[in-house]
């Protein structure tokens, strides 16, 4: 019982600490670490998701039409409400957890176990400033960018491939899509992706800095905990945020008002 409470308390303290220390990004080594993390999380991850993201949109439309025998209107709504609002940010979060979350927690846990965090302390370098702040800020930014990228590719993929499945033109689909699209959709996914990035990075940094013990075996344990809890946090944030903004839970299965 104490361990989860300790983790929640540690996570909150770490989050507050990071928020208060964002100014440290001005320091050259911290900025360099931030840019490296943006490159690793955002740029190198983006190449691998191009095909998957563009197939995602087409797949959703194809399945919707086939299973639900839906019309064009419903297909575009699915593309916007499911792919753009929900699947896009979630897909980006999954990519970030699997690629970056594992790397961050393993790297920091390894530094902790091998005494390298102690070296930083002896050099009067604050661990939050040098290890946590650049990673959290970079992962937030990169998750947001990756979300936009996946959303754009998935929607474009859906609009491009759908004319091969249903008897409707690309222009007709695109026109209907932009009729339904509101700025709230954009704000919603932007804020959500930033929150996802923050939760993933903060959780992975915390587990990296607090491995269960200081042996080599602690590194995979820290990574497992970081990944599991990051995934749970992302799902939790997704559910709560959807409820706050749209008054719905689980893609509309639970509604705030009847």
């Amino acid at each position, binding site marked *: 019982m104490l361990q989860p409470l300790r983790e929640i308390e540690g996570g909150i303290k770490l989050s507050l600490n990071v928020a208060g220390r964002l100014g440290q990004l001005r*320091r*050259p*080594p*911290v900025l360099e670490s931030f840019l490296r993390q943006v490159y690793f999380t955002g740029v190198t991850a983006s190449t691998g998701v191009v095909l998957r993201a563009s197939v995602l949109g087409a797949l959703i439309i194809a399945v919707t039409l086939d299973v639900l025998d839906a019309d064009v209107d419903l297909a575009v709504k699915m593309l916007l409400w499911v792919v753009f609002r929900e699947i896009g940010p979630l897909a980006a979060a999954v990519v970030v957890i699997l690629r970056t979350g594992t790397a961050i927690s393993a*790297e920091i846990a*390894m*530094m902790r176990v*091998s*005494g*390298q965090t*102690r*070296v*930083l302390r*002896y*050099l*009067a*370098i604050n661990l939050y*400033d*040098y290890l946590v702040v650049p990673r959290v800020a970079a992962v937030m930014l990169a998750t947001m960018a990756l979300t936009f990228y996946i959303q754009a590719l998935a929607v474009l993929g859906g609009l491009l491939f759908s004319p091969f499945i249903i008897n409707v033109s690309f222009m007709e689909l695109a026109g209907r899509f932009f009729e339904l699209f509101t700025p709230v959709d954009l704000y919603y996914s932007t804020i959500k992706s930033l929150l996802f990035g923050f939760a993933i990075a903060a959780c992975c940094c915390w587990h990296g800095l607090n491995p269960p013990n200081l042996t080599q075996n602690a590194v995979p344990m820290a990574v497992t905990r970081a990944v599991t809890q990051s995934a749970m946090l992302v799902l939790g944030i997704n559910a709560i945020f959807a409820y706050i903004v749209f008054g719905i839970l689980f893609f509309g299965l639970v509604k705030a008002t009847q």
Partner: protein
Amino acid sequence: MAELALRYSRLVGANPVMVSVPRGGVTRLHLPGEDVKMHLVKAVLKARADEGEELELLGAATAGLDAKGRERLRRRVGVVSREVGLISSLNAWENISLPAAFHGTTPLAEVAELAQSVLERFGADAEKFLARLPDDLDPLERRLATFVRLLVEAPELALFDNIVAGLTRPERERVKEFEAEYRARLPLGTLLYVDTQEAAA
């Protein structure tokens, strides 16, 4: 009475010890055991004495210091020790320049110049050396990188903790030249060697 760079006492445990190191010169301490040595090195590194210990660094008692005061004091002290190794994910240049870049104490151009001249003095190809990760450096090279990082910090008190441990005889001879390099660059600094009586024998 000569001004002291370090005064340390530890009156608990199996080997009580009292140490006074005058400012300016070179002092060699052969402590009674590894445990005593580690307590001294850690106390200096943290600028903080544990229970049963007393520590004065560069004329300042550490007992009443707050975190900031301790940090200020710590930055006037440099240590070459296995306790303060290199960061494995950073190359030699990043390791050497990290404290200066982070604290903004020395311009990086000056750090690069200093690193290049010291490395060349010790027969290393500076460009190749600085690009390598710690795992690609041999024990002498790792010690050299730590020593250059210490020189960049220009500490008033430099502590060499069992600096020749694990090195071959020719490598030990090279390491002995660190002293002359430190004295040449920081003539007013204090150099303190610590090892155990067993290691000295």
